[in-house]
């Protein structure tokens, strides 16, 4: 089980992920609504894993991922993308993301991906 930071610009998606991850026994240490806030919260909370939305205001998920990896090369970041954003997934993996989940989420798949990334 891990300490997780959830990054998404919509409250609905954050709440949904929070419920799914909590039901899987994980601890939600924080939430962020944009990329800049995500980087700040990462430094402050030092989570085991970050779920990162791709399309967000201020700083998008890819930029935030790069910033977090610059701070901590061992950071575990799972990208949350919509169907049709596969090119974003490739870019994210190149930038150091450890996994990805595609919206809309299904709880078992989210938990499986998080478990795999935490175990790696």
């Amino acid at each position: 089980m891990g300490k997780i930071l959830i990054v998404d610009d919509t409250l609905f998606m954050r709440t949904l992920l929070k419920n799914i991850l909590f039901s899987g026994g994980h601890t939600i240490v924080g939430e962020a609504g944009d990329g800049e806030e995500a980087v700040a919260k990462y430094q402050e909370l030092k989570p085991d894993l970050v779920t990162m939305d791709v399309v967000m205001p201020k700083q998008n998920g890819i930029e935030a991922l790069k910033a977090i990896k610059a701070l901590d090369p061992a950071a575990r970041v799972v990208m949350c993308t919509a169907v049709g954003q596969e090119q974003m997934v490739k870019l994210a993996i190149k930038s150091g993301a450890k996994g990805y989940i595609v919206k809309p989420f299904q709880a078992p798949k989210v938990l499986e991906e998080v478990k795999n990334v935490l175990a790696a």
Partner: protein
Amino acid sequence: MPLKEVPVKIEYNNQWIVTKLGLAEDRIVIPAPVNREILFKTVTDVEERKNILIITAKTDVEAKYKILSVEKVLQVLKKLILALCNAYRLKAYFMSPAIRGGVLVKDAKWEEGSVVVVLSGIWFSSGVKQICVPVVDVAAIELTKRDVQAKPTDVIRIDHLESGEVVSSFVLCPLSTLQVLYNFLKETTKGMDMKGTELDSIDQQVAMLVYSGMDSHAIENMLNIPPKQLDAIYDKILKLGLAEVVIVRREIQLTTKGVRYISDATKAQTN
């Protein structure tokens, strides 16, 4: 003369009988006691349920044949029937499954083969693989773009439900053909289409939470809505045929007798 014989069981008079199907260039020959010949061009539908292949052939009357066999034999049969049956068929590249339950399938790759549309389903058929997407399970069909050899390329995405999971497949062929296939698939699955205005934003959020596996209690808490409102939204979703009732739960409250029982039981434990 049959070119090849394959061992199968076939349903005849509500019983499975062991036999050998003869496979000729233009037909399947079923020996006695069934004594039938199925011309490939009369086959209008092919379905697969576990390891049973159901073939519908139509001449003057419609006949269904249920064939049971090992995967290797069924693969030979499927490949042959799909190549020659009466269906909408085109050469294409396909990737199926490409995304399962929201996660990209590892090692998914483009395969060269055919897309064959029969009455009950869309088949992806290649030399080594035959995958069926039943029309009733199709959740979405979309013309979209996908990176193929690092170039954004027009493809058709077909989403279908499989054991409660959304599985996406992609089809790639020349754009003009893609448009024809897209129109044909949209027409085939027209019964599943919705206007898009049936649900308001709260209803859509509820539907998405149901999709994500949340139960009623979690949905009420997340959206901060009372049970009655959620019930009304459920009714709307059910009426539109977007969901089905899986379980009916009850909330109960103790009577005076119940409260007394619990009080006594607690006293007995603490004494």
